[in-house]
């Protein structure tokens, strides 16, 4: 049987480690979600109109990816501080499901529509859904602490 000593995890034994990891998590989701939101606002016709959706997707792609990598790594670290607690937390389960759906959506439907410069109606729908999904991820992320 595998016994995991929580106190051996630096996140639980070092006073600074946990909040510092959270700082990385927050900054990285601002970067990843913010860059996606920038494209979504353009898709919705609400900003960055001098550029095409395709150009903005290309320009922000690397930053979105960098943000996602850091946000997932720091998220896994936070998860490791108390895995059982998180696994049985309904908000956490919803968040992870939503996150996986949002990432898959971002790199399939969202990307395809963005790169093909579809009709304004399609762009609005796809951008709006994306924005709502990412907001749901942050909402449920915070909710973990309240249930």
């Amino acid at each position, binding site marked *: 049987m595998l016994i995991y000593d929580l106190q051996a995890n630096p996140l639980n034994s070092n006073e600074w480690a946990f909040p510092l990891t959270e*700082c990385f998590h927050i900054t990285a989701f*601002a970067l990843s979600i*913010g860059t996606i939101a920038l494209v979504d606002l353009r898709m919705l016709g609400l900003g960055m109109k001098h550029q095409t959706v395709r150009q903005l997707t290309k320009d922000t792609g690397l*930053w979105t990816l960098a943000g996602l990598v850091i946000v997932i790594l720091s998220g896994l670290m936070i998860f490791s501080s108390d895995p059982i607690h998180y696994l049985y937390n309904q908000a956490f389960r919803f968040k992870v499901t939503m996150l996986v759906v949002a990432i898959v959506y971002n790199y399939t439907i969202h990307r395809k529509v963005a790169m093909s410069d579809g009709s304004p109606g399609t762009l609005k729908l796809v951008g709006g859904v994306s924005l709502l999904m990412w907001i749901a991820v942050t909402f449920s992320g915070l909710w973990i602490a309240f249930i």
Partner: protein
Amino acid sequence: MTAFQIADSIQSIGFLTYIRESGYTYPVIMASHLASIAVFGGLILMTDLRLLGLAMTDCSVTDVVKQLRRWKQIGFVIMVTMGLLLGTSEMDKYYNNPYFQFKMFLLLMVGVHALAFHKSVYGNTEAIDRMPQIPQVAKTAAVLSLVLWIGMACAGRWIAYYEQPREGQKTVATAVANPGDIVGNKP
């Protein structure tokens, strides 16, 4: 009137008491604070990275700064409003929390930053776009903005981990110093 009394009377205002004692309103406000950091905080980061010449270099500085300005303003208002509701609804807990004080100082510095660099950077983007290279002043503004905003997010997180020294602490220390007192607590 002491600082504590002032803090206490602020948080006793009707709707702030309601927020503090509610089951769902408080986390909804906090989640909105966080969601606006996600959506709008990223726009701030991208503007700074553009000024540093690291991101969105296909777009002119003017395009990035001017087209994102309205959204950053909207985001700022939502973020600050939600943050103030959170802070003032538990004012007696926060007013002497050094991380809260530092965060408010950084918020003030954001205002100073905006005033200080408006003429040379944010209101001067057409001239910057005509220059062969991004001027040092624009890069300085971008780095300072990154430091201020990331610092703000971190200070916000640390607020939650600060434990107020309590008056009773001394008594506890004395009790522990005398082992006889805690014998009864041994497992």
